[in-house]
């Protein structure tokens, strides 16, 4: 070894550099693989959505709902895919149904538009009340008081064969003034 001092220090610099590069690279492989796989849900967003033919489900008949009566809660039961599993007839949510006139039914998703808690119907007060941050909605779903940015989310209702109540069950983005459907 009879390198000049400057060659020596060059070599040393090279070794330092190479160590760092190789060290970084070999550390990166498992880390990157892991992070990439952990991001997988973003590549599959929308999977696992419960699907019915046109989105409408038969929930009740007109006779089940007394005219002008209190809103009644109905569970939504559907086939559901969750990652590797497929389920038949799993509860996936609930709606309030309320018959307002002879031939008219309104439906609300029970999920609070604020941050997603389950909204209760209070018989005495005749209103909807969210127990999480005390948002208060009238029977028509309008926001009375509280922190919710909008009223309760109404759902499309169709009357089929004159008496069957079909509802299009949907979820909406939480905590926005706009009511935007989400696919989950």
């Amino acid at each position, binding site marked *: 070894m009879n390198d000049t001092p400057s060659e020596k220090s060059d070599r*040393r610099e090279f*070794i*330092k550099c*190479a*160590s760092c590069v*190789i*060290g970084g*690279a*070999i*550390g990166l*492989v*498992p*880390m990157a*693989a*892991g*992070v*990439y*796989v*952990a991001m*997988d849900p973003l*590549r599959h967003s929308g999977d696992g959505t419960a699907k019915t033919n046109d989105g409408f489900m038969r929930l009740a008949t007109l006779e089940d709902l007394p005219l002008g009566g209190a809103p009644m809660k109905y569970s939504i039961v559907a086939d559901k*895919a969750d*990652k*590797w*599993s*497929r*389920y038949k007839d799993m509860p996936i949510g609930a709606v309030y149904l309320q018959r307002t006139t002879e031939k008219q039914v309104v439906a609300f998703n029970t999920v609070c538009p604020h941050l997603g808690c389950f909204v209760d119907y209070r018989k005495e007060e005749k209103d909807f009340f969210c127990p999480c941050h005390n948002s208060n909605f009238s029977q028509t779903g309008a926001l009375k008081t509280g922190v919710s940015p909008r009223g309760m989310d109404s759902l499309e209702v169709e009357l089929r064969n004159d008496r069957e109540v079909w509802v299009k069950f949907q979820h909406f983005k939480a905590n926005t003034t706009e009511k935007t459907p989400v696919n989950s």
Partner: protein
Amino acid sequence: MMKQLFDWLEHRTGARKVVNEALYENIPGGSRWRYVWGSTLTFTLAVQFITGIFLWMGYAPSATSAWESVHYIQEQMTGGWFLRGLHHWTAQVMTVLLVLHLMQVVIDGAYKAPREVNFWFGVLLLQLVLALSLTGYLLPWDQKGYWATKVATDILGSTPLVGSYLKELVLGGADYGHHTLTRFFALHAGVLPAAVIALTAGHIYLFRRHGITAKTPLKKRDEYFWPEQVLKDAVACLAVLATVLFFVVKYHGAHLDAPADPSSNYPARPDWYFLFLFQFLKYFPGHWEVLGAVVIPGIVMTLIFLMPILGKWKLGHRFNIGLLCAVLIGAGTLTISALREDKANVTYQASVKQAANDAIVVKDLAKTRGGIPPDGALVLLQGPKLFAQHCAGCHAYGGHNGLLAALSGPQSAPDLKGFATREYLTALLDPAQFKSAKFFGGTKHANGKMAKFLEENADALAGTNKVNLAKVIKAVSAEAGIQSQRPMDTRDATEIAEGKKQFEALGCTDCHSLGKWNPEDSTAPDLTGYGSRDWMMALLHDPSHERFYGKKNDRMPAFGKDQKLSRQQLERIVDWLRGE
């Protein structure tokens, strides 16, 4: 600015001092390639921690979700196979590195004073890593992991006096189940890694305290660890990683067998690094087993543990090297003879092939049937398994027995793949195919009324009535309500309605009925609800019932009526045939 920040950090934490101490460790005689093994092991350990934690995010330990979630990681998550492959193959490479590291320490006498304690730390670490391998092997809950671990826990159970209690504790119950997995997982991802971290920290601390065991004669001047040795270590780690990546890519991740099935004849074999122990046990019959499973390995382990003390005697070091060589050569020989025996064992090879087929079938079902039912993937496999066992004596499924193996004898009844679909009926009603082995060629129906009808009307059915026959096929197939055909059935509603009328016009009603079973004038199977779940269940219950083949039934057993199979078993076969 930067300097100020670093100074501040240094004052508050002393980090720079620690880093400097780590990097400027003196290496007598300078850096050498032979010192890289410890670093490669630390590296593999880090890889296992990183990949393990990310795998954890997708793993669900329970008897009905472990295989399913691992399968999901492997097949559905983008890059999941790669991540799982990294974890699996790094574990294999780590085992090899451990042995190399141990060999070097013993041969160089690095266990001698003052490094005894560090040697013991190392031996403990070796055992912890083996325990990690053992517990990790079960987690996918596939056939090979399940059966291999069962042997291991049965060995534990045969320990005198306390065995059965120990086993029950490890399994979390009398038998394998949910708690076996939660316990193994807690050990694998919690208890053992924590112990490994603690011991590794101690191992490295002690190593630094006493310094490297320099190989004499020293060839060069002393050097610091940084950067010369660091580069060598990094290159060695790179080589290790390259090896791992080679296997990961070659095997597309890690193999996943069919889901654990306690009712199958899967030949239990441990992973390759435990194969020698497995083979060793073959030489200890009956209650001598404890000798091979516990006593002898225990003695060897104790001797290894005592190496630092034995080494103090004059010939001690030689004895230690001899012992290690003997163990390694012995283990190697046992491994080779285990592999040889298996290679020569035809039954074993057949079982392995069948297990591989099961895995292909179940993975395909998980993919094509829109997911796995909540009671687990094993249920998916029940349909084809029962078919292979009870139906494939006569019927085929896509040319095989339902599990991708050849039929045991000649096919004598229809191939039921796609039963009741439009394609199936189209092929069946082709006169040449009807009489072929694929359908009724092997039965007496080959010369029956239906065969004659198809032959006599062959020209008309292929010519003027071709369109009408197609409608009849759609109508009859729609009776089945097969899931994959549902959109087509809805779309073709008018043609199906016409097909029902043509059913009569073409003369089918002379023997069959459709829409309503008419016992009076039907002499052939009722096609009302043909191929539907109910229809198939009824047929399997009793094919000789007058609604079906009546007296003309050719050898088909009454599986339900004669209680050959339970209702649930029949349902599994039917659901599988119907593609559900």
